[in-house]
């Protein structure tokens, strides 16, 4: 594949909080349409990595490019952030706005779209995640799975170049995880570029193009799902996958 197809490139990314070095030099890249899954024990910098990509957390070192634009030195961060979708573990829906308005506000206030056009687009995105009937409900009136699907629709409506998912199903009741994963799977199939931090091994196995195993601020191993599950090279990867398997029993 040519260089033009690279949507996201990360080079030697470092981040410390005080004395604690959370990211110790992480590098990888993502091509258009790829889905990559990041796995690893908690506290190994996965969420920090995602937050660094759209500069919600400012890294201490290394570089990030979104297509041809260097994010880490950009002056127009608010512009760049519009192009990076973010889906949060605890949804981050705006409590005082309906599902529809949650999606519209980014379009009208940030992209300065006309209200009617924004409403139409927001409605279309709600339909895409199967929630057109819930358009006029407020977040507190939605189930966890519905909230997260609104969160995804909100990210989608901005027409981002990539969407980052930070443990999108970790706060959900088990019976609600499926509806969110299926929306994500359809997204991946439709060609969206997605970087997903998750412990859902089923999703990782069937949807992702590559799995990245992170531990202690490093990428320990990255390979295709088949490679990773059948033949992990690193001892730590083996142990981690074994533990996950014990927990969730595939």
């Amino acid at each position, binding site marked *: 594949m040519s260089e033009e197809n690279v949507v996201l490139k990360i080079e030697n990314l470092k981040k410390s909080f005080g004395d604690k070095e959370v990211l110790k030099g992480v590098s990888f890249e993502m091509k258009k349409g790829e889905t990559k899954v990041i796995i690893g024990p908690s506290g190994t910098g996965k969420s920090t990595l995602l937050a660094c990509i759209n500069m919600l957390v400012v890294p201490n070192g290394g570089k990030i490019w979104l297509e041809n634009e260097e994010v880490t030195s950009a002056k127009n961060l608010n512009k760049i952030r519009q192009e990076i979708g973010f889906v949060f573990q605890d949804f*981050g829906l*705006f409590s005082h706005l309906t599902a529809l308005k949650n999606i519209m*506000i980014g379009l009208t*206030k940030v992209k300065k779209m006309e209200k009617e056009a924004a409403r139409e687009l927001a409605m279309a995105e709600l339909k895409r995640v199967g929630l057109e009937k819930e358009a006029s409900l407020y977040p507190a009136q939605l189930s966890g799975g519905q909230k997260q699907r609104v*969160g995804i629709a909100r990210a989608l409506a901005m027409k981002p170049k990539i969407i980052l998912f930070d443990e999108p199903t970790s706060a959900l009741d088990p019976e609600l995880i499926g509806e969110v994963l299926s929306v994500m799977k359809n997204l991946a199939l439709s060609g969206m570029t997605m970087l997903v931090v998750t412990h859902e091994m089923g999703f990782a196995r069937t949807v992702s193009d590559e799995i990245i195993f992170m531990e202690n601020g490093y990428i320990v191993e990255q390979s295709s799902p088949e490679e990773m599950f059948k033949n992990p090279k690193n001892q730590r990867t083996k142990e981690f996958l074994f533990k996950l398997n014990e927990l969730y029993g595939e």
Partner: protein
Amino acid sequence: MEKIWNIAVKYWPKLLEGLGVTMEMTLISVVAGFLIGIVLAIARVYGNKFFYGLSTVIIEIIRGTPLLVQLFILYYGLPPLGVNLSPFIAAIIGFAINSGCYQAEYLRGSIQSISGTQMKAARSLGMSKTEAIMQIIMPQALRRVIPAWTNEFIYLLKYTSLAYIVGAPELMAQAKFIASRNFQFFEVYLVVAVIYLVVVLLFTKIFSILEKKVEIPGLEWVR
């Protein structure tokens, strides 16, 4: 009982005049205090070190000193420096600043009670910090602050009675004037107490209606 009623009827115009001044002072200073409070609260939550520090110092000084002392400084303390304020203006400035600092603290608590993920989500959509505060945080924080704010309004309404000490012709000042002429202290102050009570209850009701009106659907059970 009849005596009290007679007092109320006889001095009604005077009392009404005083109540007018009281309400005027209350409304002006609560609104001005609200604006001061928003600025101070935002500085405390989102400001850099300088604005955080400045806001904190102002709030602590105002909250840490008696309102009456603040009024005396404004009314008696400033003229030697060439600033002459009428009792009414001095009282309003004092009340607005004092109330602003209390309102700032209520509002700060209310802002901080809104989940941080909403701020992150707003920023990740490309909103500036100011936009996120105005579009996302404030609409929710202002709703949540209504109960505490009702409290502050009631306090302020009653504390305006301190203004009679610097000579503002509000309800308490009228009462003192009337009572000192007819020596019916008990009756006059009782009438005044009832007037304060009725006004307070009226506004409590208004704010509770407002609170229900702007309630976010789905969150009713939280109460």
